[in-house]
């Protein structure tokens, strides 16, 4: 578990950084290239989950790319943590933008959280929201199941 503990901590740190520094940047309607540069940079800040740590039970199937989402609940601290990976860089960045709004929440806040609103925060370009929405809504569905069972 020690590797995963490190990974959780590292991810949490990166997500917190993303939430504070990068999220506001994405909210600025700039040139599309700038938004993607920000997204790519953001993806690069996150640790890589090695292949052997991507169990098929964590697989979320999107259109043509795959994503893995692992969830941890620290009952002592009362905090929800996520670790994730995708073979597509843009998907990984989008997951980061979504999950940085949730990671570290206490159980009560997590259960009450309106996940669809987090999606809005993504400020995606129009296309991105269309073509990724299928993949992202599987993630949202998955998270909603977690909410219900937490």
């Amino acid at each position: 578990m020690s590797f995963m503990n490190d990974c959780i901590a590292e991810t949490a740190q990166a997500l917190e950084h993303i939430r504070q520094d990068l999220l506001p940047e994405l909210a600025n309607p700039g040139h599309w290239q700038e938004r993607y540069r920000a997204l790519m940079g953001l993806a690069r800040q996150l640790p890589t989950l090695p292949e052997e740590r991507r169990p098929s039970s964590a697989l979320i199937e999107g259109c043509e790319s795959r994503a893995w989402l692992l969830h941890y609940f620290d009952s002592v601290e009362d905090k929800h943590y996520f670790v994730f990976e995708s073979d597509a860089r843009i998907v990984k960045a989008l997951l980061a933008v979504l999950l940085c709004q949730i990671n570290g929440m206490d159980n009560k806040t997590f259960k009450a959280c309106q996940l669809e609103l987090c999606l809005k925060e993504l400020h995606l370009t129009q296309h991105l929201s269309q073509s990724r929405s299928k993949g992202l809504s599987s993630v949202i569905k998955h998270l909603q199941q977690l909410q219900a069972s937490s």
Partner: protein
Amino acid sequence: MAFNVETFRQQFPFFQANPNWVYLDNAATSHKPQIMLDSLQHFYASANSNIHRGAHSLGDQATQLYEQARQHVADFIGAEQAEQIIFTSGTTAALNQLAFGLMGTVLQPGDRILLTTLEHHANIVPWQLHCQSKGVVLDVVPLTVDHQLDMAAFSRLLQHQPKVVSFCHVSNVLGQVLPVADMVQQAQAVGALTVIDGAQGILHDTIDVQQLNTDFYVFSGHKIYGPTGVGVLYGKTKALECLTPLLGGGEMIQHVSFDHTRYHQLPFRLEAGTSAIAEVIALGTTLHWLAKQDRTGMRQHKQQLLQHGWQQLEAMPQLELLSSATNNAGIITFNVRGEHPTDVATLLNEQKIAVRAGQHCAMPLFANIHHPGAVRLSLAAYTTQAEVDAAINAIRMAVELLCPS
């Protein structure tokens, strides 16, 4: 006079409606000439009726238009008789009819079928669907290291005496044109029936099924400037007679009682229910029109674009090209090293370049060449050099965003 892409392109209203887009997803579906749209409108607005009932002149007229379309299709592919053209809902339906229809007649338990690693799912899954329960075995022709079909292995696998050999005319992933005439000859020499999946091949070259001598050839309307919802199953008369109908229903039937049913003759036996009447007629009109275009010029134009695009992309060190520049019907497939193809497609899409990324319904091929998928640019005769250049610039931009140096 040389083929004029601008004149040709003007016949496709899609481009006027979408002047800012560069459409390079032609292998997925083609756009439609005005004459195809007019055919649909004309039929529905003034000649609409059900067919083959013979009770009124409106129906007779519709039947004539429908049967004329069968003749147009027969002429387009050089079939001996119009009755050898069966209309289906698409390539997929045609291949399913073949897989279902040959089981139990041509294919007996223990028999073998030979496919290739290049096949689209539509030429794999239907065979699988029925092989297991019928005890029929699938063999697969592998690729060589440079992604070519391994012709030595093909010949070797024919020694297992497959009863059916089914392969694509043109690979939808790599654009590769298979030596179909040679393959048909070899397959028939061991007594196999041949099926050619012409979904991509039909638009590539003028074809003559009699010269090819294949037992079956199938394709979809929507990929050859025609409407969705219609496809063609060509077969030699003897080969068609081996098919058990996949669909039962009206008009395929000569006599029905609850004990027993007697089928009609070809082609009706294999066209159950109300056909895609308007779509068949529009497809016939489209192919009749296409036959009169400068098809050699169209092919040359596409080859020129292919070479031009291929050379530019080959020169980019971040790219890995999967398709080759020779013997290619007009498809450039590549990956940006270390990047996922869907990311590349997303960045191209932001620049209004429509391409496809992924496994292109050919998972076994990608498993074989060890790529998670690929980006595919597929050209058509209406594609302009300016469009190819715009795509290349957009790819440069995508590479810059994905792999900042």
